[in-house]
């Protein structure tokens, strides 16, 4: 929380942030994970994990295969309903929202967007349409649930124009402007990854969750990705990412959370995590083989 004697600088999006030099010291949280447990039958994939992601920061979740990272993600984004514990989203100037109690589409509306390890675009729709679908909630409200659009009411073209405008901004930010009208399924792999991020951003989330965004990218593409993520953070969106590419993680993360066998073993700045003996042991193994399947 903000110390009382240091008045927060309020930016145009209502984000409070204080900088001392390059490092963010404030710890106002955007996402709170409290005592989260997820069991599949007898298998405990995530066990009593608690941490908080700070607003306006990039928080990385790392850990060996089967550590429960993706399960944690699926709980946060409503794919799974957690067995126990709570997940709360704290948006600026709003009451906290209990994500673990919401149905899937409400989580997105609350302000959480995600991308997938294996890309899940709508392959039969164009890149632009993929981004417009992401703005569905806004557009539906503007059109009287689609009826207005058929009748050609005046509010609709305006809302649609704004939606296209936002989509074009993200297409250009992700370097996809010239592919706007191509079917998403026909784009090259790296472009599909970027489009997925663009689509998530078009929901105008407070928190963007990325599941291994650098998987399968070449070093140049990874660099571009890192730049894109920093740009997104610069615009005031908080990020939570799972990543195996330690180069990317250490370069862009403000904070690193380490999971192993479903338990939290470290939660610190990147440099501190790198030297943590528990983390090194988890990655190099300590005899007992990791056989948990990552769900």
């Amino acid at each position: 929380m903000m110390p009382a004697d240091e008045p927060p600088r309020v930016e145009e999006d209502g984000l409070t942030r204080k900088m001392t030099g390059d490092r963010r010291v404030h710890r106002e949280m955007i996402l709170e994970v409290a005592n989260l447990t997820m069991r599949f039958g007898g298998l405990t994939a995530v066990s009593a994990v608690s941490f908080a992601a700070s607003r306006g920061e990039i928080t990385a979740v790392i850990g060996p295969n089967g550590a429960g990272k993706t399960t944690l993600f699926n709980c946060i984004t409503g794919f799974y309903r957690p067995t126990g514990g709570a997940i709360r989203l704290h948006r600026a100037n709003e009451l906290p929202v209990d994500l673990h109690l919401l149905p899937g589409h409400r989580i997105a509306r609350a302000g959480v967007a995600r991308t997938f390890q294996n890309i899940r675009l709508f392959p039969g729709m164009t890149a632009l349409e993929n981004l417009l679908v992401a703005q569905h909630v806004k557009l539906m409200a503007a059109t009287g649930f689609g009826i207005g659009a058929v009748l050609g009411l005046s509010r609709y073209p305006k809302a649609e124009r704004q939606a296209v405008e936002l989509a074009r901004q993200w297409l250009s930010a992700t370097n996809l402007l010239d592919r706007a009208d191509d079917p998403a399924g026909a784009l090259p792999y790296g472009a599909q990854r970027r489009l997925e991020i663009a689509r998530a951003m078009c929901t105008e989330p407070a928190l963007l969750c990325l599941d291994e965004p650098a998987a399968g990218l070449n070093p140049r593409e990874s660099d571009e990705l890192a730049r894109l993520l920093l740009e997104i953070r610069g615009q005031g969106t908080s990020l939570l990412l799972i990543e195996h590419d330690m180069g990317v993680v250490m370069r862009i993360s403000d904070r690193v959370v380490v999971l192993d066998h479903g338990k939290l073993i470290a939660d610190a700045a990147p440099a501190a995590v790198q030297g943590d003996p528990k983390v090194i042991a988890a990655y190099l193994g300590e005899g007992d083989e990791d056989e948990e399947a990552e769900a």
Partner: protein
Amino acid sequence: MAYALQQLINGISLGMIYGLIAVGYTMVYGIIGMINFAHGDVFMIGAFIALITVLLLQLGGMMDGPAAILLVLLVSMAFTALYGWSVERVAYRPLRGSFRLAPLISAIGISIVLQNYVQVSQGARVKPIGTLVPGGVEVMRDGPFVVQFSYIQMLIIAVTLGVLAVFTILVTRTPLGRAMRACEQDSKMASLLGIDTDRTISLTFVIGAALAAVAGTLYMIRYGVIDFYIGFLAGVKAFTAAVLGGIGSLPGAVLGGLLIGLIETFWSAYFSAQYKDVAAFSILVVTLIFLPTGLLGRQEVEKV
């Protein structure tokens, strides 16, 4: 030549009706991967509601002119849409996430329920109604044979094209249409983007039922007789049309409907009217064996 032309006109107007019903099958299949076997009976409900509306209007002495026909069409669409919504809500939504056959069986059950409900409430006798739209245009005269393009056939073609045009705009240009296509391709992902998939599916049923109501109304006006059982045959033929066009494909459904209508009409004209259903259903069998994805259907690519 004149005879063939007449059959062409008849075939196209019949095919349009099949096409309208087939769109309902194909839409529902596209979005939840289920064949809604009760859809034919929703068409029958549409015809009955249109009939009741016509009788009420006649009672009030207001059943004349295109405005009355339009009113009948709208009333039928509204009430049938309500039926479509209720069917989905009551019989299919509770079974979502259950095994694949469950909603299918539920659909067959609903089909029987609707048939019996109409039979009990409206009686089992065939309901005749006088000609509502008389007359037509003489297109061509070949000796004693006159090629007629009746006003009702024009009405069928015009209304169908109009409804399909609105429907196409709805699906391709509006947020609702995009949401429907998104749910079709990946409903879980769609919900992660904030789309209420349950509501989108409900709306799909509502739109499908409204289209079936248009078909039912046109059928009632064209043939002048309906009974509680018309939904079965029309439904199965429209299903054949949807399969022939490629189930899941909207233009395919219309194309399939037209083809089935034409084949059936020409078969009865040149071979035997008694065996016209054999012709239609042989196409179903042949399509399923040799062209399972249909004319415009796309090959399913399983991704891991």
